[in-house]
């Protein structure tokens, strides 16, 4: 096991990670894996040549606009589009009556019509679609659609939604689903414990705020439809459009365009604009573009789910955890979407990386007339992590214990049984992340410094907070039917390589990882590998690009294809080098034989082509089946786990209540960093996005409508808000497996890599909330910790009645 350190951020830019070369093993990479380098798409994005959806033009292109419901909950009696149709420049108008297939875009449950028939359930519900020759005309026409609607009472709070007599968002009531974990006897444990810590946590909505808003273009052609767009999951879009238009999947092709960020917000959601554009393209017979502006994007697209978490944690006086009882309410919004799957992960993750023998968790998903909950980096885990990490810090405080020490005492170790009853196969790197974060932050000295600062009084107070997580890598057992993942590799006769995958590059660096894995296995340079845009016509359905699964899944699929190609190239190489197959080594663009003999990879490719070798390969990877019982929440929910510890040093200004993160320390178990710069970029980005969630990002929602659907008032962090982020990477560097001790095997990615996209964010909000709570000496359990919230605590205890400036008092 090796660790790398790297520190970066506004104040420490340009420092490179300290590299410790991993121990050689059978699987240790020899080429580009683990080396510094550029992203393969960096130049195109910097010089402006990358073409995003809004850069694309088609002949006869039309522009779409939508008429949405003015009311958060209403009975729609009549929709009259005659005036809209008469606006000059309008080419097509569509309502639910025009849908040739099913008027349905529900991703998991069929509860969401694309277009309102008789009932509007939130302000984003679509009533009519317009296609016109320019965007302004389309918008003007949308405004003159006449809608007769009777307002219905709405419900905007999960607790109220469950009360008897609450307005029902759907027939059948507002409770959608329940998940649970039942292990041991939590009730008894709570009764017999020396201490019970109980808090109610509120994790609010969060907007993805990707740089590029949602956008698609639908191009109709002889009974088929092609969709271009900014998205994470082309196969979801393909199914949605096929269902809406009543077409076989073979007639719907989806091509992902360069995607300017997604963070989960382009998982299920792009099916909606894609279906709108497709329906209008179908009706008009012309290509239709539908690109959101920022306000529309924030108002209509999905958000991180708002969750209310009641958490009771029982322990012995010596700090040993005995039991946990956790109630989670998840606000789905008006439709289910991915809520059930998010809730399933929240449910499983709610206890954290701790040994807790008695567990009772209940997670309920609930309809309201609020904004629509969906996938967002962490997928339900950041919310429950806020709670379990808040509880650990609260318990440490109660028992007068060091927070890191208390975590160490209760940490899951190899062969320990996790909350969901799984005996964990080694390696379990949680303790290593705790130790690395402790070293990185200079924990004990830093704590003493913080205490000294606070004793001295003055305008600011400092606080230190810890956040830890155990992230189930890739899809939950509940979604394992979607886990198979494909790749297509081709070696051209000049030795260059084309790679296509079924998952997507959305800014996270997938293309670079894919190019590196292909280059590593084939022994070529990274820039010899061209990664193609993801296209449903090229690669079989590979499931969604989510759950930090791209590096493990697409990585394996690419490695699998590359190994096949290697075998197909070997006869040519042995011919040229006059040696046996097992004597050939492919690396760095050369095929090497015994005794310093070598030929260029390009010559091998040319010879193989001459010999009529099949120089394309289709790779496929599916992790082993997992056993999981939904009724009890017990079993093996994930293929592998990634651990993380993050520590925040925060400062609170007593004059204003403004909290900011001064320093941030991250220790992550990544298995293997295939692209270390990319890994560090993900960690910095995830951490800062988590800080935004903790401190400044507040959606102001009234009667289901977002009042600050803009970047003036919805405040995401700027570079001025990004502190120094120090990083330690823990690389155990093998693909894992059963060591014959009765544990399920860990299925990691190629070269032992684990996903990092989400673990980078998950503990950050908790670490920040804990640090601010530490600074104030009061447990803050609701995010975001905006200055007015903090100030209320300051004012309550009159903490601001100190001299702000030293010498003024004298």
């Amino acid at each position: 096991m090796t660790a790398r350190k790297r520190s970066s951020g506004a104040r420490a830019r340009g420092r490179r990670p300290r590299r410790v070369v991993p121990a050689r093993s059978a699987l240790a990479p020899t080429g580009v894996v683990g080396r510094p380098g550029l992203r393969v798409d960096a130049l195109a994005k910097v010089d402006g040549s990358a073409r995003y959806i809004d850069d694309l033009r088609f002949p006869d292109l039309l522009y779409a606009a939508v008429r949405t419901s003015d009311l958060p909950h209403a009975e729609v009696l009549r929709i009259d589009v005659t005036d809209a149709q008469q606006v000059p420049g309008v080419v097509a108008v569509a309502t639910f009556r025009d849908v040739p297939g099913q008027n349905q875009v529900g991703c998991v449950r069929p509860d969401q019509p694309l277009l309102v028939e008789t009932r509007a359930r939130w302000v984003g519900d679509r009533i009519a679609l317009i296609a016109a020759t320019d965007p302004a005309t389309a918008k003007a026409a949308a405004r003159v659609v006449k809608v007769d609607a009777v307002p219905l009472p709405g419900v905007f709070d999960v607790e109220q939604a469950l009360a008897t007599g609450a307005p029902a968002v759907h027939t059948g009531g507002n409770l959608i689903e329940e998940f649970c974990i039942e292990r041991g006897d939590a009730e008894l444990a709570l009764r017999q414990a020396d201490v019970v810590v109980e808090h109610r946590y509120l994790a609010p909505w969060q907007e993805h705020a990707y740089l590029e808003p949602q956008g698609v273009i639908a191009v109709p052609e002889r009974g088929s439809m092609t969709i271009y767009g900014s998205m994470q999951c082309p196969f979801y879009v393909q199914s949605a459009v096929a269902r809406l238009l009543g077409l076989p999947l073979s007639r719907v092709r989806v091509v992902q365009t360069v995607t300017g960020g997604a963070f989960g917000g382009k998982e299920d959601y792009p099916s909606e604009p894609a279906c709108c554009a497709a329906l209008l393209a179908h009706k008009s017979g012309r290509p239709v573009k539908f690109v959101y502006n920022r306000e529309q994007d924030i108002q209509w697209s999905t958000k991180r789910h708002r969750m209310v978490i009641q958490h009771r944690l029982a322990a012995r006086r010596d700090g040993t955890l005995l039991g946990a009882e956790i109630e989670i309410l998840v606000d789905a919004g008006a439709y289910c979407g991915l809520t059930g799957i998010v809730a399933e992960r929240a449910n499983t993750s709610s206890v954290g990386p701790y040994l807790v023998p008695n567990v009772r968790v209940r997670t309920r998903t609930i309809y309201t007339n609020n904004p629509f909950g969906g996938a967002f980096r962490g997928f339900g885990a950041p919310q429950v992590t806020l709670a379990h990490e808040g509880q650990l810090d609260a318990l440490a405080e109660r028992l007068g214990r060091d927070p890191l020490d208390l975590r160490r005492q209760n940490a899951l170790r190899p062969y320990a049984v996790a909350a969901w009853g799984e005996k964990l196969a080694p390696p379990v790197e949680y303790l290593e992340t705790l130790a690395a974060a402790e070293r990185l932050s200079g924990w004990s000295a830093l704590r003493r410094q913080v205490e000294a600062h606070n004793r001295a009084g003055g305008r600011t107070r400092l606080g230190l907070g810890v956040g830890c997580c155990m992230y189930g890598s890739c899809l939950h057992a509940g979604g394992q039917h979607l886990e198979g993942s494909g790749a297509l590799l081709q070696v051209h006769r000049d030795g260059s390589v084309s790679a296509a995958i079924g998952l997507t590059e959305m800014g996270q660096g997938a293309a670079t990882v894919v190019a590196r894995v292909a280059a590593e296995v084939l022994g070529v340079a990274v820039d010899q590998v061209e990664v193609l845009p993801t296209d449903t016509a090229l690669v079989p359905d590979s499931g969604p690009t989510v759950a930090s699964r791209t590096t493990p899944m697409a990585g394996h699929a690419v490695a699998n294809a590359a190994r096949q190609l290697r075998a197909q190239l070997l006869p040519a190489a042995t011919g040229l080098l006059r040696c046996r197959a097992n004597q050939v080594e492919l690396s760095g663009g050369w095929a090497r034989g015994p005794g310093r003999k070598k030929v260029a990879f390009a010559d091998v490719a040319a010879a193989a082509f001459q010999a009529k070798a099949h120089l394309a390969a289709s790779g496929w990877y599916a992790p082993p089946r997992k056993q999981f019982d939904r009724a009890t929440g017990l079993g093996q929910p994930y293929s592998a786990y990634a651990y993380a510890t993050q520590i925040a040093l925060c400062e609170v200004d007593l004059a204003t209540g403004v909290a900011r993160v001064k320093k941030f320390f991250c220790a992550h178990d990544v298995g293997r960093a295939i692209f270390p710069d990319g890994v560090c970029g993900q960690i910095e980005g995830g951490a800062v996005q988590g800080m935004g969630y903790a401190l400044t990002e507040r959606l102001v929602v009234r009667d289901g409508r977002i009042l600050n659907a803009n970047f003036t008032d919805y405040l995401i962090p700027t570079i001025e808000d990004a502190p120094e982020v120090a990083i330690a990477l823990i690389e155990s560097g093998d693909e894992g497996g059963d060591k014959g001790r009765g544990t399920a095997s860990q299925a990691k990615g190629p070269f032992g890599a684990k996903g990092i996209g989400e673990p980078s964010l998950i503990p950050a909000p908790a670490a920040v909330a804990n640090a601010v709570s530490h600074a104030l000496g009061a447990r803050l359990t609701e995010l975001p910790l905006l200055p007015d919230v903090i100030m209320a605590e300051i004012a309550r205890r009159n903490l601001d009645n100190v001299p702000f400036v030293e010498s003024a008092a004298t």
Partner: protein
Amino acid sequence: MFVQSVVRARSEVEAAWLVYEGKPATRLIAGGTDLMLQLRRGQRQALALIDLRRSGMDHILENEHAICIGATATVAALAQHPGIRAHFPALHTAAATLASQQIRNLATIGGNICNASPAADLVTPLLAYDAVLRVRRGDDVREVPVDRFFTGPGQHVLTQQDLLVEVVVSKPLPSEGERSRFLKLGFRGAQVIAVVNAAVSLRLRRGLVAETHIALGAVAPTAVRAISAERLLRGEKLTPEAIAAAAEAAVDDISPIDDVRSTAGYRRRVVRNFVRLALEEIAAQVAAETAHGSQRSRSRA
């Protein structure tokens, strides 16, 4: 309503006459960093725009008595001006921390004033320094003190035919010993509209407060002066007690509201703390200068 035409004024005179003869639904545009957003959101309408950026009104002229700032001088230019930095530190700080570099390069002082946002960052310092605004109608120029310029959120005394041409801030005499501070509260590190801003100027004579202006933004329909706090301070020594009393009094001079950014109660608390903080900083500066001065005279002796 969409903008159909844009006319670019090539001089102050041309701008003044274009405005004077302007058709209805004509608006002025300088940096456009307020107006473009408002047009896009439908908060303001215009059929025609008069573009002021090439009208040559972007001068910053300094003489013995005053600094005259042209209405289209950019916020970036203000932030870089050594005279403003030396004589009007609150205005300098407000300009240097407004939005972000990209916005500062476009945004103008005239736009900041004429947009008449109660949260505008340059306005509180201008109030603290008693700035005078020069307004032109055709060939007539009149002067309006900044504290009589604003009439409500987004509203001011200019008519459709008026053009703001220049902002004049008079320099204090060195003997007046003026000190000033600007404080801004936004909820993140940059690119943020103030939830509260404050500018305080203060003159001491023989250890007593001779004059002080305390201007507060985003806590009333327009930026306001904390008149009762100022009154309490005049003639007093800058003791912690006097400072605390003034800070409490300032809370009664404002009328904040709840909005998407924050709450009235929170703004009151911050105003109290900001007034105290600014005055404590000034007191500390005075104390440091006095200590430094007496040290110097001692070493000279």
